[in-house]
C-alpha cells in the first residue's frame, strides 16, 4: 500500500510537472517569436542596424530561455534553432534581404513547431 501511495504521488508530480513544462514552453516560445517578429519588421523596413541589435537581443533571450530545454526536449530540435539563428545573424549582417526573411521565417517555424509537438493532442498521441 505504501508503494502504491508513493507511486501515486510521483505520478501526480509527473503529470503536474508535464503541464507546467508545456505552459513554460509556450511562454518561452511566445517570447522568442515576438523577438523574431521584431527582427522581421526591421529587415522588411531595411533597418539593418536595428535588425542586428534585435538579433543580439534574440540570442540573449534564447540563451536564457533555452537553458532548460535540453533537459526535456530532443537535442536535435535545439541544435536546429542554434544553426538557424547563426544563419540569420550572418544574412542580416550581410544585408541580404531575401535570405534574411527566408531564414527568419524558418527560425520562426522551428520555434513554433516545438510546443506544438509537445502539446497533448490526439495527433501527437497517435
Amino acid at each position, binding site marked *: 500500500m505504501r508503494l*502504491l501511495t508513493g*507511486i501515486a504521488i*510521483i505520478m501526480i508530480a509527473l503529470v503536474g510537472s508535464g503541464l507546467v513544462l508545456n505552459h513554460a514552453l509556450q511562454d518561452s516560445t511566445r517570447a522568442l517569436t515576438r523577438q523574431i517578429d521584431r527582427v522581421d519588421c526591421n529587415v522588411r523596413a531595411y533597418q539593418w542596424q536595428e535588425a542586428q541589435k534585435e538579433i543580439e537581443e534574440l540570442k540573449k533571450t534564447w540563451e536564457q530561455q533555452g537553458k532548460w530545454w535540453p*533537459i526535456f526536449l530532443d*537535442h*536535435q530540435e535545439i541544435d536546429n534553432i542554434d544553426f538557424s539563428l547563426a544563419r540569420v545573424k550572418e544574412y542580416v549582417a550581410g544585408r541580404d534581404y531575401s535570405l534574411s526573411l527566408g531564414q527568419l521565417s524558418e527560425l520562426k517555424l522551428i520555434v513554433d513547431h516545438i510546443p506544438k509537438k509537445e502539446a497533448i493532442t490526439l495527433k501527437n498521441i497517435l
Partner: protein
Amino acid sequence: MILIIIRTLILYIATVVFLRIMGKRQIGQLQPYELVVIIMISELAAIPMENTGIPILSGLVPIFILFASEVTLSYISLKSEKARGMISGKPSILIEKSKIMEDELKRLRYNINDLLEQLRLKNVLDINDVEFAILETSGQLSVILKSQKRPVEAQDLNLSPEYEGLPITLVIDGEIIEENLPKANVDVDWLLNELAKSGINNIKDVFFATLDSHAKLYFQPKSPGSKTK
C-alpha cells in the same frame, strides 16, 4: 564518451532499482504482463544510453510509468481473483487422468509435440503415468504423477525422519553474518572455537560456513591463493 558512461550508469541503476522493487521471480515464472514490462524496460533504457541527443528523462519517465503500471496490476491481481483471471489468465488442464484434453490443446494452440517435450523435461516418458498435467499461467507445465508412479516418500515406508530445518549461514567470504548467530543460538567465541578445532585460526580464511538444525557445522576454507597472509 564520458557522457555515455554516465548516462549508462544512471539508466542501469534506475532499471535495477525498479526491477528490484518489482519483486523476485525467475524469468520462466513471470506472468505475461510482467514479461512485457521487463522487455520494454530494457528497450527503453537502451535508447537514451546510446543516443546522447535524447534527454535521459525520455528513458526514465516511460520506465517509471511501466513500473507503476506493473505494480498497480500486481496489486489489483492480489486483491481480486476475477481481475487475476483477466490479467494473468487461468491454468488449463491438458491431461486429466491420463487422457489428453484435445479441445483444451486446440484452444491454447498448444500442439502435442510441445506437450510431450515438456513432459520429457519433467522426466515423464509415458502419458499413462500422468494423473494431471496443468499448463500454468506462466507457461510452465505442472505434472502430477499417479500415486503408483510418483517417487517414494518416507511416509510410504512408515518412516519418521528427523526434522530438517534450514541451515543457517554463519560466514561468507571471511565475514561473519552477525545477525544469524542468535538465530543459530551460537556466538562468535563458539564459532572460532569450532574452527580452531579444525586448524583454522583466522575467520578470514573461511570461505563459507553453515550450521544445520542438528548443530553440525559445515565449513569450507578459502583456496590457498586467496587466503590472508
